């Protein structure tokens, strides 16, 4: 457990996880997608949302803390924290489609200016240049979650002019187009938290708007990572750095093995 001391400077990923976690409010029922939402939701629960309930697509409802950090949304460690273990209809069905959850958190591969997510393919669907994972529950989160938070590491290819496949509907063509498609009202992505900053969506046009950057990050830097001409909020803020206590929680309690934050999950000897 080297390097957990909280005096080490926060990494971009730590900033992202803390910033996303801060968006969760206490008592909320949170659909936790796989990958980045896992440390973010657990960070929130250990810092300021002790009463949040974590929901997992495969059928788990957890309001306790698992014995270790789950590596995926279907990790066996979660059963010790679950008050309900059921099937997809218990969570994605009755809680998400049924409208009984508050917020969903998703890792996204790439996103367009209206928050539409592609995790399916680059190039034509029938003969793609790069084939990606597909939806899992992501399309359901995007279709149905009352509030939706996306998490992404920056890379210009992840913010393209247009995406080749809408795996997870965002605000579609902007404006009222999402409603016109028949999706439930007052939904769609609300925030995108990245390794550079935080984005919201314009309430009218539904276009992504840069709303905050981490200390030291410039708007120009963000623009370079995004293929379309990015709108910036007139109220752009600097996102406060993780506090010492936040970093301590994240490093010592949430992910002491560095499974997410130091990529230990993908080394051969975790």
């Amino acid at each position: 457990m080297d390097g957990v001391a909280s005096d080490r400077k926060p990494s971009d990923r730590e900033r992202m996880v803390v910033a996303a976690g801060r968006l969760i409010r206490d008592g909320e029922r949170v659909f936790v997608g796989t990958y980045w939402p896992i440390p973010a939701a657990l960070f929130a629960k250990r810092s300021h949302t002790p009463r949040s309930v974590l929901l997992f697509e495969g059928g788990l409802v957890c309001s306790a803390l698992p014995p270790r950090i789950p590596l995926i949304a279907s990790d066996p460690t979660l059963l010790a924290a679950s008050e309900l273990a059921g099937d997809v209809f218990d969570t994605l069905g009755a809680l998400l489609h049924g409208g009984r959850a508050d917020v969903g958190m998703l890792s996204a591969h790439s996103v367009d200016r209206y928050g539409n997510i592609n995790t399916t393919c680059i190039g034509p669907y029938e003969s793609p240049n790069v084939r990606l994972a597909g939806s899992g529950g992501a399309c359901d989160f995007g279709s149905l979650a009352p509030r939706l938070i996306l998490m992404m590491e920056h890379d210009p290819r992840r913010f393209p002019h247009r995406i080749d496949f809408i795996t997870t509907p965002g605000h579609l063509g902007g404006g009222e187009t999402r409603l016109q498609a028949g999706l439930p009202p007052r939904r769609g992505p609300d925030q995108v938290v990245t390794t550079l900053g935080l984005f919201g969506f314009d309430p009218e046009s539904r276009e992504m708007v840069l709303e905050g950057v981490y200390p030291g990050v410039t708007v120009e830097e963000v623009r370079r990572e995004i293929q379309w001409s990015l709108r910036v909020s007139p109220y752009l803020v600097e996102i406060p750095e993780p506090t010492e206590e936040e970093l301590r929680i994240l490093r010592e309690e949430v992910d002491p093995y560095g499974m997410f934050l130091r990529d230990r999950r993908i080394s051969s000897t975790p």
Partner: protein
Amino acid sequence: MPPSFSDKDKRMTMEEAVSRFVRDGDVLYLGGFLHGEPYAAAHEIIRQGKRDLTLSTAAGTLLVDQLIGAGCVRRLITSYCWNPIPAPTHAFRRAVERGIPHPLELEEYSLLGLSLAYFAGALNLPFVATKTMLGSSYLEKQGFLGDRKLRVMDSPFGDGPVCLIAPLRHDVGIVQLQRSDPRGNGQAWGLLGPTKYGLQCCDRVIVCAEEIVEEDKIRTDPNRTLIPGFRCCAVVEEPWGAHPSYIQGYYDRDWRFAAEYERETRTEGGFKQFLKKWILKTKNRKEYLKLLGKDRLTALRGGRRVSSSVSYGLYEGFGEP
């Protein structure tokens, strides 16, 4: 969006739970399917004189009969209403045949049809398509739900005529089950009927349990949990709360009670006497049980037949192999 109640101890008396969470005019779902009928809660609803309820339940028995006879119910959504011995439920009949104590509007389905309507309501699906009920009179006799209940259309996938069932939604639901923690993580076993889906249609859920146990005990076996605690607004510890129905592993159905009820309630006067004796003059479940007598309860306890325990495992760290 209903509020989250996830982290609170929601234990209260039945009197408080019914008074706070069941409102005149509500669509009230009663859980159970001959097994686990919430009698204690229904009796408290009668005592508090709730009115104009739309009752929704998979199969009506004495419980629904009593609520109807006591004048609490204006509308009934169900697949069935009868005394399982079998014999008529007389108050139900008086209401439907003669409007006593007042007229009763009906909305009926087959059991599978109603269960699918609950499923659609639980998930908030626009509708579900089925082949059951085609050709039956249920398609013609739509009641107060009007055209928000069933429709027949030609399947766009080429299966000929199909019956579309619209979702049902409930304001409040009550279930009586084996055990719950103080937050309302209720666990049930035995025959489950369509109770899970019926409850999931509810904005508020009152969990009545034979026993309240620690949250940790619930977590030893989370597959038994019917509905998560944050969906629950009140938890009532109410042993024998389903009598004269049964709770698997706790007590048997009181068949004799059902037969007596049938005879005693054939007349309106007889029903009123029953109501007075068993419900209005008993202040709560404790007094009802006292009236019933210890011997009768003892006779209803079955033998024990214990489940083999299983391990869910404990996965704590990321050790080297």
